[in-house]
């Protein structure tokens, strides 16, 4: 595209403003973190940070997909926990059994996501309440599978996933990149993916334009289940066990919404994307790390998280100053 390169760059920058701000914020915070960290920029420090960040990033990507259609998925945390419980049961044994186990975990996520999609699209329930209910069901299934913490995962597999490739690049980060390249980018460039943006931007206009509204929404929720399950698998690799921890699920659900917003995706839908969400998740996780290296009381962490969130969200609301019909502010 050499026709109007300057104009193109301008529009690209405008569209990527959210992700770029989140990326810059993360870069600055992470630089500060490694300079303050006693061990400096060592593979170990990077690996630990990556494992934590990637966990949240996957859950947050799961959240991004429904949010783009101007929905919400309150069940991502429960699917994450359920996948953890399934993985702690099935991902053991011979390499073939491990592969089948991984497939089962991901399949479980897809099924949960598909159920969400059905309830939202066919049942026409509001996503927030529909997924609150299905999330409780998934949490219940997880408890039934694993009433007490336990189980195991193949340790070689787990160590590989949470380790570093060649002692430098965290494997979890590679998994994240692979998921982006193999799932997100094709989705973003498919008709269904663009339809998701169209629906989030104006569902009526999308319908009037002949966009396959129902199918695209369904796919968004189904993929959300898949991403949440990938996160659950990673969690199992980190903890070597499974636990139907409802608190953990809830906290990941809320953090996922925060990461989505910090990453520049509008909760009204139609704008944003998974790349920004990844940086949003990394920013949230780095806050905790920073507080740690600066020796700040762990009890103050929620407060700082809240302040960062508030500032990020306010940046996104600046455009409301341009609204000319006051009535539009109250819709």
């Amino acid at each position, binding site marked *: 595209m050499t026709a109007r390169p300057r104009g193109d760059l301008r529009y690209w920058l405008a569209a990527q403003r959210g992700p770029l701000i989140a990326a810059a914020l993360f870069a600055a915070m992470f630089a500060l973190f490694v300079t303050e960290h006693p061990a400096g920029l060592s593979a170990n420090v990077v690996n630990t940070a990556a494992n934590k960040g990637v966990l949240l990033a996957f859950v947050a990507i799961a959240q991004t997909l429904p949010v783009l259609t101007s929905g919400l998925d309150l069940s991502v945390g429960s699917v994450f926990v359920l996948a953890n419980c399934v993985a702690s049961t099935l991902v053991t044994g011979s390499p073939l059994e491990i592969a089948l186990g991984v497939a089962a975990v991901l399949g479980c996520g897809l099924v949960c996501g598909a159920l969400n999609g059905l309830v939202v699209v066919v049942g026409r329930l509001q996503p927030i309440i529909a997924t609150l209910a299905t999330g409780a069901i998934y949490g219940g299934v997880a408890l039934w599978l694993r009433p007490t913490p336990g189980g195991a995962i193949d340790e070689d597999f787990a160590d590989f996933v949470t380790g570093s490739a060649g002692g430098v690049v965290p494997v979890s980060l590679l998994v994240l990149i692979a998921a982006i390249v193999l799932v997100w980018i094709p989705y973003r460039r498919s008709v269904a993916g*663009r339809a998701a943006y*169209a629906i989030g*931007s104006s569902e009526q206009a999308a319908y009037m334009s*002949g966009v396959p509204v129902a199918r695209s929404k369904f796919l968004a929720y189904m993929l959300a289940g898949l991403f949440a399950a990938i996160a659950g698998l990673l969690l199992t690799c980190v903890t070597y066990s499974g636990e139907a921890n409802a608190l953990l699920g809830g906290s990941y659900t809320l953090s996922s919404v925060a990461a989505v917003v910090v990453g520049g995706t509008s909760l009204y839908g139609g704008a944003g994307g998974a790349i920004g969400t990844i940086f949003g998740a990394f920013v949230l996780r780095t806050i905790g790390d920073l507080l740690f290296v600066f020796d700040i009381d762990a009890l103050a962490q929620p407060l700082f998280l809240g302040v960062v969130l508030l500032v990020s969200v306010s940046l996104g609301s600046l455009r409301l100053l341009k609204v000319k019909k006051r009535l539009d502010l109250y819709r």
Partner: protein
Amino acid sequence: MTSLLRMEGISKRYGGVRALEDARLTCERGRIHAVLGENGAGKSTLLKVLAGVVAPDAGTIELDGVPVGFTGPAAARRAGIVSVFQELSLMPDLSVADNICITDPPKRWGLIDHRAQRRIAEQALARVGAEDIHPLAPVRDLPLSRRQMVEIAKALARDPKLLLLDEATSALTAADVAQVFGVLRQLRDRGLAIVFISHRMNEIAELADDCSVYRNGRHVSTFVAGSVPPGEIIEMMIGRDYSSVFPPRPPRRPRPPGPPGPAQRASEPPVLKVTQLSWAGRLRDIDFEIWPGEVIGLGGLDGQGQRELLLALFGALKGVRGEVAVNGVAVALSSPARTQLPGGGIALIPEDRKTEGLMLPMSVRDNLSFAAIDRFTRFGLIDRASEQTAIDAMIQLLRIRADGVDGPVAALSGGNQQKVVLGKWLMTRPQIILLNDPTRGIDVGTKQELYQLLHQLAADRAALLFYSTDYAELIGCCDRVLILYDGEIVRVLEGGALTEHNLVAAAHNLATEPAA
């Protein structure tokens, strides 16, 4: 050879309202067909049926002689029918190119090919002479006229067999209109059929090959363009039976026609004086004055800035330029709360009573006292006794059915709901009342009660600014009618010149006949 399109016996009701009744339309290939009629004649509904947006209650549609039924816009599009509607069908967050190619994007290896898509978008824009629009710009950032060009480019890029345009050029500049018309003529000459709705008579004269006139949901006449003079077309749109459809009008108050006499002008300032009011290109240099006891109508076609004018006066718009003086004192109207002025405020009876006028689940009593709650508040607490007395008086004045006053307002009929909206604002004892199409969807009996109430209010020296899409109502109720066209007051009709013919003619920005 069979006609491209034949619609017969199309009927559609919305609740008790008849939108279409046994309507028909026949279109030929290579012809441009204008659909004419007043506000509410059923034109838009007819096109929506054709576009698969509205399912008709009865009737048949034949395309190329084959009966069809559309389950949705996508089905109509597959049959080759593409539409451009008043409510834009663009996704604001998506880029221009994404919007143009939304339904059938070019693909490579199963994924959207952005280069090819951009090429298509650039060609589509160039075709309608809108090269100034960057294909990567988000639609959100474009002004309305550019969006409409994108909408037209999008429709043409789908290569339709039958193109429907519903007020598709209403926001365009004259140069854009000329360009678009040029493209439409080319398409027609290549055998495309085009159906369009426009309220601009000059556009119809310029573009149409055939015309069909509709009135009250019925087909009136179809003729070759140019074979019927404009005056006669307007007669068809109004209809001779028009007056019998509406209730007997309340008697005009005995008052000489013309502006308030010199005596009144000298003795007191106008209660509302608007000077050079402008907003966002949608309102332009509006000037007018209202004296106490006057009912001023806002006429013209729907969507020419009447609603915006009322909202501006009520403080709901931002960036309004110009001066507004109440009783000779300039006021800054920055929010609806600020319109509660000492000595009587400004009230707005909104367009949509269900969302902007009422809190539906709450009781009639609560709804009535909301706007005037300050009147009953002492030391931050609501004085229930004085509140109830005032509410009872209002219920009596409005003759709201008493058995429902403690129940949710949602349970009342539309007419009674509208009375509650009006009552809610009368409780504030306003001196200026803005009414935004207050009788829409209301039964005849309640309409008459409302008219009587308006006259009573005017007799009590309130000033009323009254927007209605119903011309008979404007004639029946108003002392003067300001005709808006494209955000400007183009004509003021009063006295003997206030006739249906002149209202319709002025609304289409045609010459009016002098007062009889």
